[in-house]
């Protein structure tokens, strides 16, 4: 019979219409500013800079290597490398970004900067309420606005941050070990050199290359 | 001047406008519109004569106008479809260019 499907459809919408007044669970809308859906862990929108420790200026992991600046497809990152070096979180002297700007209005959230960063210094944020009254400067974030602590990173992406932290800790431990070993070797080499120098001051040229090779190893 | 004279003069004027349009314009659609105008002028005559004639209760003028309107509608439909067919055939509605009998 013609119109059977129409009647079925009308019954369905009528059920929705009255049901939505009776049963609040039918309503799928989330009243946004007051209520919010929990964000899933994989949420990503714009990049930010991670710092270790308490001081955003001193603890930035970024060493201004400018790989992200080169890789950024829409070219929204602008970095000025510092001329001097400062000790980073581990106390090692490193270059740091004198200026680090990201134009969020240009960024396309591709996450390539995160992929290429060898220092795990740039990560994706989940903050989406970024609207600004300032048309040109409002979305141009400098390094002070971009800097967010490692704790924050752990909060928004716990799994990923845990993995990064573990990797970093391992790396640092390895680096420390290597540094210790190197220091030891250096010391040994220096001692050997000193001993050699002391033992055979007359033979001047021959042992020198051996010491040099040992040092380069 | 009596009202009837006014209507008749208006009707004559409309007829002349329609005639002028049908004679001077090249586009077939406009020629058809001109013919419609002439028909309408005649209708106005019928209605005016019905209203100011001696036997308005006979309704002959109104009837003639009604039938004439329906004939005009049929004429417009057929005329415009012929214009469409001619356009499809010769890619023009310019009457001056439609001057060959063979395709």
């Amino acid at each position: 019979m013609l119109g059977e499907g129409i009647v079925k459809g009308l019954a369905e919408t009528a059920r929705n219409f009255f049901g939505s007044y009776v049963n609040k669970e039918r309503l799928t809308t989330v009243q946004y500013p007051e209520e919010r859906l929990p964000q899933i862990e994989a949420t990503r929108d714009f990049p930010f800079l991670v710092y270790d420790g308490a001081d955003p200026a001193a603890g930035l992991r970024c060493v201004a290597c400018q790989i992200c600046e080169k890789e950024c497809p829409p070219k929204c990152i602008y970095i000025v490398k510092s001329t001097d070096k400062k000790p980073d979180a581990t106390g090692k002297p490193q270059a740091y970004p004198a200026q680090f700007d990201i134009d969020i209005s240009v960024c396309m959230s591709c996450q390539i900067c995160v992929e290429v960063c060898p220092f795990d210094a740039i990560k994706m944020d989940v903050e989406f309420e970024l609207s600004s009254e300032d048309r040109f400067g409002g979305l141009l974030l400098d390094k002070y606005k971009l800097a967010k602590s490692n704790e924050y990173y752990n909060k928004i992406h716990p799994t990923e941050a845990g993995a990064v932290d573990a990797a970093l800790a391992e790396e640092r431990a390895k680096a420390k070990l290597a540094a210790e070993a190197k220091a030891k070797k250096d010391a040994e080499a220096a001692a050997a050199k000193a001993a050699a120098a002391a033992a055979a001051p007359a033979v001047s040229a021959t042992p020198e290359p051996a010491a040099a090779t040992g040092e380069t190893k | 001047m009596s009202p009837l004279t006014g209507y008749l003069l208006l009707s004559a004027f409309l007829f002349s406008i329609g005639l002028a349009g049908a004679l001077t314009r090249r586009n077939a659609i406009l020629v058809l519109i001109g013919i419609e105008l002439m028909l309408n002028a005649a209708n106005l005559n019928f209605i005016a004569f019905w209203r100011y004639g001696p036997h308005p209760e006979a309704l002959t003028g109104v009837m003639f106008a009604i039938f004439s309107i329906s004939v005009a509608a049929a004429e417009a439909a057929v005329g415009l479809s012929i214009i469409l067919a001619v356009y499809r055939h010769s890619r023009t509605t310019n009457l001056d260019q439609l001057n060959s009998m063979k395709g």
Partner: protein
Amino acid sequence: MTISFLLLAAITIIGTAAAMTLKNLVHCVLALTLGLVGLAALYLELGAQFVGFTQILVYVGAVAILAAFAIMMTRSAIPTLSNAESSFRASGSLIAVLVFAVLAWAVYTGTSKQAILLAPPEGSVAQVGSALMHHFVLPLEVIGLLLTAALVGAAIVAMDEPRAKQTRGRQ
């Protein structure tokens, strides 16, 4: 010669004259519509309600739209040379003026000079209906037949030719 008659006559004349002189064909159709609405108002002024509303229904609702469709389909909306006046411009206008002169002369000499004052006929719609069904029933049937024939004929004439062949082939 009332003010309303003069006003409506002016509207009608302006509309129809514009319809016959404007360059753009769509403007012509719109101006024609104005003229025909004025004419319908004149019918109402004369007391012929049924004819007046039928005029609007048929001419504004059907003929003007049909003409507009024809203009769109024949691509005549662009004001080109083909829409301009033909070579008969002077002679055609002269003929029209002569016709008007003759008709006006006939009207002036043929009708009586004093106003005919008849009471406007009343309840004409019901009368029109009964007249259509009784006295004029045969013309009504003929008109119905004519309209059906026109409908079918117009559809067949305007039908796309290759497609017509296809359907014939399928049958």
